[in-house]
């Protein structure tokens, strides 16, 4: 394909090994896929404090996704500093 860009970025290549990149990709993708796969949580039961599964599962995953994202952030920051 043709490159239309006037200025190609110079120092933006992500450092780090392929393994590290795969782990980061997985850490970021898991929460995104879970949230987008609505049929896996569109149920009434089991309920929690009178709340249907649909509502509490999505809310709980906000916390779980933060843990996944923190892991990814940690890896990316480490890769950026070049301390692989």
């Amino acid at each position, binding site marked *: 394909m043709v490159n*239309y860009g006037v200025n190609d970025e110079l120092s933006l290549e992500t450092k780090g090994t392929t393994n590290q990149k795969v782990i980061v990709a997985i850490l970021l993708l898991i929460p995104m896929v879970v*949230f987008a796969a*609505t049929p896996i949580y569109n149920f009434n039961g089991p309920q929690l*404090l009178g709340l249907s599964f649909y509502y509490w599962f999505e*809310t709980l995953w906000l916390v779980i996704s*933060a843990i996944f*994202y923190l892991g990814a952030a940690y890896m990316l920051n480490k890769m950026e500093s070049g301390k692989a």
Partner: protein
Amino acid sequence: MNNLEVFIVFISLFVLFVALGFSGSRFRKGDMSDLGEWAIAGRRLGGYLAWFLVGGDLYTAYTFIAIPNALFVKGAIYFFAVPYVGITFGVAMLTMPRLWKIAKEKNYVTAVDMVQDKFNSKSLAALIALTGIVAELPYIALQIYGMQAVLTVMIGQLVTVDAATITEIALIISFIILAAFTFTSGLRGAAVTAVMKDVIIFVTVIVVIVVVPMAIGGFGHAFSSMKALPTGNETLAPLFLNGFISLVIMSALALYLYPHAINAVLGTSSTKRIRYSTALLPIYGVGLALLALFGILAYGSTSTLAMISKYGPVTTVPSLIYNYFPSWFVGFAFLGIFIGGLVPASIMAISQANLLTRNVIKPYKKNMTPQQETRYAKYFSVIFKFIALLFIFVISATYSLQLQLLGGVIVLQTLPAIFIALFSNKLEKWSTGVGWAAGMFTGIYLLLAANDFNSITTVLFKFSTPLSFLYVGLIGLVVNLVIAVIGSLLVGAFRGTSSKKAAKVEQ
């Protein structure tokens, strides 16, 4: 309930807020007639304040007013805000550190600076800037609705004129306060008051989500007292599955295309800080999820339902708070919701004005003095708020959430020029421009068609099965992307290798 006490607490805290806003303009003193000072606080905001700006953006009238309102009226589909928040920070982790680095390397202040350089086109840059500016307008209108909702309940309970008059008065007051505040304080004032806003809001959210469900007798009671809502009560009605998923993914892609969001990211001091604070932001979203559920809890409280039928569903959260707390706390919480609309609206208006002077006017009018630039930006920020008011006539308060989703349809059309250009040089400027136009036309046309060309009550277009309902923003973006990509390939095939040579010569 002592309505006078509510009013006094609200006003006292508001005076404090205004004082803070004005002292904010003197905070780490800078020359306020300079655009850099007014619009991006001279880029001297520490990481801490910048973090407040990004995180605080989550708690706006969208959270307190629009989402609970939509859930109350239409049901389960509007819980889409929760997975949307969950995904959008993943998107931000992938895109924002890269944008920050490019911006730092090339000394960019807005994302449109990058568009101008990448595509080497002033007109495409101006087009993308104007798109961002227009997309912010309905979002600002939503904030004004939020401010109005609080005032409607508060004034309505205090005096006994008819509700319609009160609502109008409340709207005018909200608008004047917003315009005056933005004009005088700039981003510096907004950043300083954002801290006060977040403290009040955190206290309110935590207290309210503990007390109200217990007082009402839990969600079980609320669910059992509910009538059947159009998109489902306990779960999402299967008919709306595609609508839900398209709202989730498109909103997640849209958030970090908004000028105010990018503004806040570019103000942060390092990529490492961007990653860590972004990773933690979904936890902020838990409050949003619980506030959304107030749209359901309201059904468990007859006194709240009576109030909502008097002042409209846009007052779902204020009505619940009013019915379950002592006067002083109601005043405190109402102020939180009020400035929760005011501060973000101000930040949005500043990012619009900044974008207009920097990326639309300046490239064509190079001999502007810095003082002129700032004067333009300040006056434009007022004009934009007047235009934002127009959206209030197109979309009624009951469907206030549709304002934000309309903004989404518009801002999504900048995705190829901003997000794709961030990672690739393969898009060509004419194809990107035509893709933008086609996407914008398709999105807006389907939006109007979905509402039978009347005032807007939905952003979902009904296709025949199996697609059923889809968010019009998705369709617009698909049309846009297809044209931009195919166009770039065709132009590339025609020009062959000559464009590579041309690119080298231009450099």
